[in-house]
């Protein structure tokens, strides 16, 4: 079966996001960008399925600006076979991305679609679930284990307080949580080879979808600054402050 894996270009997770002075958004100019960490896990899972002989082909997809091709090349270097870039400069949020991905799913007919559970920029945690709704497929979100058995997938999900296992008929949509796997690093020869792998570029219009968000971003502000605290000299003083000043323990 084919596996489609969807990825997003975001600010590198080691870099602190800084709000622009005009409050229009977060500064992305001259900031290091990378593949969203949860998407790296999605790519890794897809590649492992191919290595196990379960997936016949891994197709990496992104919806975003031209620069996002860099992250598609990374996915190709990690083991994806080909890439599809749905190119747009619009501010795309989950529903728009899911609409474009649904068209890709319709065309490619994969047995499994793997996405990161959440992008670390918008923190929405929506696209996989929305794609499942739009394609009418079952969903296994926040996966920490995926076992494919013939025409079914057993997905162990990280839920509040523990784990839940569900069985889904294939095709299905899976979103990744942290414990699913540990992504590998791309090796130099693979990075070179990735440059020659096919990349198909389409526009949302080619797919017949509108991707611009209907949620207006009115402003973006830095969070309230924390008051600089005090140093305490001893455990006794700490306990006293917590009891009598902060009143958080009794």
């Amino acid at each position, binding site marked *: 079966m084919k596996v489609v894996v969807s990825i997003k270009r975001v600010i590198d997770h080691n*870099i602190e*996001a800084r709000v622009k002075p005009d409050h229009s958004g977060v500064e992305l100019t001259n900031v290091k960008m990378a593949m969203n960490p949860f998407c790296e896990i999605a790519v890794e899972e897809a590649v492992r399925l191919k290595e196990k002989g379960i997936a016949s082909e891994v197709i990496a997809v992104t919806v975003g600006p031209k620069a996002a091709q860099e992250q598609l090349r990374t996915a190709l270097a990690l083991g994806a076979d080909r890439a599809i870039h749905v190119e747009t400069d619009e501010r795309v949020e989950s529903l728009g991305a899911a609409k474009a991905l649904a068209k890709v799913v319709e065309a490619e007919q994969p047995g499994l679609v793997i996405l990161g559970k959440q992008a670390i920029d918008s923190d929405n945690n929506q696209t996989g679930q929305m794609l499942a709704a739009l394609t009418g497929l079952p969903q296994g979100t926040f996966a920490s284990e995926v076992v494919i058995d013939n025409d079914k997938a057993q997905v162990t999900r*990280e839920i509040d307080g523990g784990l839940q296992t569900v069985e889904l008929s294939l095709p299905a949509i899976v979103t990744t949580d942290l414990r699913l796997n540990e992504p590998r690093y791309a090796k130099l020869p693979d990075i070179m080879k990735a440059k020659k792998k096919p990349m198909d570029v389409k526009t949302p219009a080619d797919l017949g979808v509108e991707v611009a968000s209907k949620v207006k971003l009115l402003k973006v502000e830095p969070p309230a600054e924390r008051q600089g605290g005090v140093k305490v000299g001893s455990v006794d003083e700490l306990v006293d402050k917590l009891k009598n000043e902060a009143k958080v323990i009794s």
Partner: protein
Amino acid sequence: MSILVLAEHHDGALAGATAHVVAAAQQIAQHDGGDIDVLVAGEGVGAIADAAARLDGVSRVRVADNAAYAHLLAEPTAALLAELAGDYSHLLAAASTTGKNVLPRVAALKDVAQISEIIAVESPDTFKRPIYAGNAIATVQSEDALKVITVRTTGFDVCPDRGTEGGSASVEAVDVVAENSQSAFIKEELAQSDRPELGAAKVVISGGRGMGSGENFTLLDGIADKLGAAIGASRAAVDAGFVPNDMQVGQTGKIVAPELYIAVGISGAIQHLAGMKDSKVIVAINKDEEAPIFQVADYGLVADLFEALPELESKL
């Protein structure tokens, strides 16, 4: 227009998260005066519905009591909500793993956006929500007729319980049964811990690389027992193999905002701060007085944790 809140429940009891979500619904209703309904979906949920009916401000509880909704699997639960959505201007759920699983699916079925993890209501269509793991707060406005929203429970106080004397909302059965042949529940393994869960705990104590080893994390146990705290860890401690990944607090782990957060042997990398800096009171214990964690800590103790932890435990 009215608001529908999806009730959260576990083990036959209404989860505390629901009262926070109803409080957010009340703030929306304040502006345009709509009614607040609560949907209790599940199997054998009569007692949960009664508890929901006692929440202040709720006018009607709708109960979909059917095996189809056991474990609130996304496929049938989203179909049910999409079916009921026509009566409402807003659908709300907690930003729990249940709410996050179900609500985006409902939104896409209704061809509307979903707004995740709101922390404040500005008006019935405008909300504040953290982005970039809380490093920025976005104010967003929905242009959709139906607003589908998950609520970060730490952003809203609970609405009061009216008690058994205070009257209650009407309870009505919903007979919509969503067919589902695509997904099936197999099993659930819930952590058998007497400790509260990281995301819901009022007190969290976390260890970092400074703990030195996984065994040393037991130094946190006694303090956690005394404070009723959950135990967390920094990414550095997880990467060093001291503790499992599900204990990780940070941008790529759990985001917590307890009343009291105690960071032990944690330097305060950006990725960790992003996961805990909305805590009400932060305590840092670290032997390196230059550690960045002290810049966000309300109370910093520069000390060797191997001496400070046993002393702290004995003095609580």
